[in-house]
């Protein structure tokens, strides 16, 4: 179990290599109610009509994957992800290698929280999505 006292600024999360399949992308879009309104998440042809190379991941799905990077790091514990902020910089494609990263930037002993920078890169090291997360540890 992850303990607040054992954290060190500079601790890393990942790097985690990942390929999201088109099927996962479609499932996510459908669960989120995007399936019938935005073809760009479910249908290659509809995406191409919008000038995209093919299906892209919903921005929320990238937020979900980066949240998962943090909750995997927390593991089975009563520490909790309490905040996640993301900026969508470049469209994210399924069937392409993605790399998820995290870096612990600060700890606050008063409220027992940790601040983490998170980001998603493509194979070329380009940052597609960036974000920050806050994890709260039990008092």
């Amino acid at each position, binding site marked *: 179990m992850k303990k607040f006292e054992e954290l060190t600024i500079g601790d890393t999360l990942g790097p985690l290599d*990942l390929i999201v399949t088109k099927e*996962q*992308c479609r*499932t*996510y879009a*459908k*669960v*989120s*109610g995007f399936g019938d309104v935005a073809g760009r998440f479910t249908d290659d042809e509809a995406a191409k009509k919008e000038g995209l190379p093919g299906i892209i991941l919903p*921005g*929320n*799905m990238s*937020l*979900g*994957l980066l*949240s*998962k990077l943090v*909750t*995997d790091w927390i*593991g*089975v*514990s*009563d520490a*909790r*992800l*309490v*905040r*996640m*902020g*993301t*900026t*969508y910089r470049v469209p994210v494609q399924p069937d392409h290698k993605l790399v998820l990263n995290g870096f612990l930037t600060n700890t606050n002993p008063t409220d027992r929280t940790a601040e983490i920078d998170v980001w998603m890169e493509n194979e070329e090291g380009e940052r597609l999505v960036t*974000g920050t997360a806050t994890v709260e540890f039990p008092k």
Partner: protein
Amino acid sequence: MVDYDPAIINKVFENTDPVEVKAEKIARFCASLGETNPLFTDPDAAKKGPYGGIVAPPSFAVTFRNGRHFFEHIPRFGRRGFDAGKDVEFVAPIRAGDKISLHSHVKEIYEKTGRTGTMVFVVIRSTLKNQKDEVVAHIDHRFMNRP
């Protein structure tokens, strides 16, 4: 400075009908993200964990949709805005059986000048509440416009 009627700030323009969270939907959500954490996927293991049963992964909060009033109430500046990002505060876990409603307002409007020119950001805050009227999450949607 960007010009808008300050009366639109903080005025709630959307209250959606509650949507019941189905266990099956949490499971499909987990599958789409490749989720393996037993707190979110394994009823027996989750029972022994801090929440006493399965909860949805925190980011499940962003799957709730605003209603038809949402987009028509987002102030526009110049060309069509696009989704620049989100800030989510996860206040309390969401469980199967919860009934979640969304309450949305314009939180702030600000201008920023970057290397590509002037941008106007509109932040819409959606607050998620459960059937006990407890806040479970705040979602700030950041929309970017080019005037």
